[in-house]
């Protein structure tokens, strides 16, 4: 136990030194770059709607680190159209009302060119109408299906992270072929859980499987023992997506309920983002499977651009901060900030963006994007952007807990994630 804690710390110290050295060298670049450009152009201002406080704070902290790293990289490489970029950060309190106010602040007070970076769906949905009214390009990193469902507007795009509908449906082939066909779903009884319930149950049936039982857990629940007896005895796979602080209790009580003879278990890492897998009670997860947007642990076959991305953000091989091995990242989501900032750069360069008057051209340039090859701009993997639905599609990872670490066992293809268009935003006027 002690060893497993010691090892990552010494590793993180080494990689911290490396990162510090690299960061020190890189830090000098923006200085001269800024100097050469300062006289010719104002910086491009990107309003970062950050969850500093409220339920999304852990995500906000890592979204911030990833975004700062991406901005430092882009600026070190000369910025966008010769202009540096600057993040203008505002706390939205993970609250839709404050989120809308923050967008107004970006557009009307801080003179931001675009807004970016929101994760929680209710903040996105509360803010997006204002983005449309203010005609402010709004790049969300939310994984909600709200963009592709057609609920939002032409000014709101999600080009840097896949949506929950595509993620969930891409899991069904693996689950039914490798884990079992009789599934019991356990999910929180609110919109996030309902999305999983609706999309996965359809997808698993399309694979010849069936959902035996759907167990919805009220959001106020703190103990779960009374729900486990509802799991049918012939269940082959448990699919769980519990989120929030109660997840540790949930896993512990599930372990106590099943003991050594459990069915296969598949979950979404959303439950355990920013949570150390060596936390007490989580040992029951050994051998179970998780969806990951991007692997938390550095995989043995990781490409160099993945390592460069992780070094730039300051993530060690266990997915924790290089400065604090207990500070576990939100690896499965935060790459979306990095990729989105690179897409904003690509869109601004393609449209010759020079100021707020070109915002419409920027949206049109992003809508025209299609293939996004894997590389340092897209370290999570190759993606295909659908300009009509404003939603990107990409590979999904399925990992198994082995020795307390998540090891990738399967990569779902982009084709597995596709579904018919539900909207064509390009037909809407600006």
């Amino acid at each position, binding site marked *: 136990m002690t060893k497993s804690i010691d090892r990552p710390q010494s590793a993180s110290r080494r990689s911290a030194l490396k990162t510090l050295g690299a960061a020190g060298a890189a830090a000098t670049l923006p200085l001269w770059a800024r100097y050469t450009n300062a006289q010719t152009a104002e910086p491009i201002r990107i309003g970062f709607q950050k969850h*500093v*406080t409220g339920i999304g704070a852990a995500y906000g902290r890592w979204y911030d680190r990833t975004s700062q790293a991406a901005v430092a990289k882009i600026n070190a490489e000369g910025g966008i159209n010769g202009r540096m970029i600057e993040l203008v950060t505002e706390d939205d309190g993970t609250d*839709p*009302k404050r989120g809308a106010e923050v967008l*107004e602040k970006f557009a*009307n007070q801080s003179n931001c060119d675009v807004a970016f970076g929101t994760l929680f769906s209710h903040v996105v949905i509360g803010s997006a109408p*204002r983005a449309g009214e203010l005609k402010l390009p709004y790049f969300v990193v939310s994984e909600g299906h709200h963009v592709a469902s057609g609920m939002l507007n032409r000014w709101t795009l999600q080009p840097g992270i896949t949506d929950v509908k595509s993620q969930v449906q891409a899991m069904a082939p693996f689950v039914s072929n490798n884990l079992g066909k009789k599934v019991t779903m356990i999910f929180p009884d*609110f*919109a996030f859980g309902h999305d999983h319930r609706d999309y996965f149950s359809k997808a698993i049936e399309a694979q010849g499987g069936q959902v035996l039982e759907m167990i919805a857990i009220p959001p*106020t629940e703190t103990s779960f023992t009374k729900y486990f007896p509802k799991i049918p005895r012939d269940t082959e796979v448990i699919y769980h997506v519990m989120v929030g602080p109660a997840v540790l209790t949930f896993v512990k009580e599930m372990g106590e309920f099943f003991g050594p003879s459990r069915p296969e278990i598949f979950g979404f890492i959303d439950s355990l983002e920013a949570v150390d897998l060596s936390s007490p009670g989580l040992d029951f997860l050994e051998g179970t499977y998780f969806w990951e947007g991007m692997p938390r642990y550095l995989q043995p076959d990781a490409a160099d651009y993945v390592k460069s991305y992780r070094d730039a953000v300051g993530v060690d091989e266990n997915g924790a901060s290089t400065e604090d091995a207990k500070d576990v990242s939100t690896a499965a989501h935060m790459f979306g900030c990095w990729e989105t900032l690179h897409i904003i750069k690509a869109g601004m360069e393609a449209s010759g963006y020079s100021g707020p008057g070109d915002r419409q051209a920027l949206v049109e340039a992003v809508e025209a994007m299609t293939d996004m090859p894997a590389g340092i701009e897209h370290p999570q993997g190759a993606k295909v952007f659908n300009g009509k639905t404003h939603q990107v599609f990409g590979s999904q990872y399925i990992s198994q807990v082995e020795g307390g670490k998540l090891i990738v066992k399967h990569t779902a293809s982009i084709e597995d994630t596709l579904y018919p268009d539900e909207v064509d935003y390009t037909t809407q006027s600006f």
Partner: protein
Amino acid sequence: MSRSLILHLGLIAVLFALNFVLPPYAHGNIARVMTLAVYAIGYNIAFGYTGLLSLGHAMFFAAGMYGAGLLLRFTDMGALPAYAAGLAAGGALALAVGLLALRTAGVSFMIVTLMFSQAVYLAILYFGEWTRGDEGFVIASADRMIAGVDLAAPQARYLVAWGLFSVALMFLLWLVRRPSGRVFVAIRENEDRARLLGYDTFRLKLLSLVISGVISAASGAAYAILFGYAGASFAGVQYSIFPMLWVLLGGAGTVIGPFLGTLFMFYLIDLSSGLTDAYMLIAGVALIGLTLFAPQGIAGEIRRRFWKDLP
């Protein structure tokens, strides 16, 4: 014209004039503050004037928001009828809750209203198929029109918020100066004595709560239509605490206090968040300071020091 009438009409006139001079960000903010100040005015009738300390007013705000929002989402009835339905939903809920909750008083009333409000919040999550639960839903711009006027346009939004606020403010001023308003205060000060004088205090408290619920719903429905979003977070417990905070800061039992409190709180958060990530600390210290040095709130302090008959 009395001094108090001049004060309140003056506030309305100033807010109208601000429509033409405010820079865009402040223009949007004041529109939002006026909309939410209506909620605080509603809360003030129950708490500030009648002494009904509710911890569940978010359910009335949400009743207005969803009463209007769901109709706009699923029908083509238009913004005005949907708005009226939002008010009716708030009034009906306040009547039902009042009939039960007003059997209690004091701390029990707080707890019962909190429980009812949580039940409404959980119901919104439970019926996620229609309400989209915690995510909420967007109210389409096409549904946010009244007589061809687009309420999403800054000028129209501001003027509608101003009109609503003006009506609520003048209604409260009228209410507290007429006999029934004075009986509300009598109930707040000493319910037993009011009953002894022959007033049916249960009926009057119910009336106060229903008026309060309708006005809170008016704010919730207006927020949905003006800002295009309805979501369960507005039914959460923090949105029951906000109006209490706004009213306490501005001055409970004053007509102008709810607006001052809402404005103060908005800018306290907005400005301090520009200084530090720990802005809640600044907000907390400011609130403690205000509680220590002006326990009756801003308008309450003005009444205590300078203007004894400020309504």
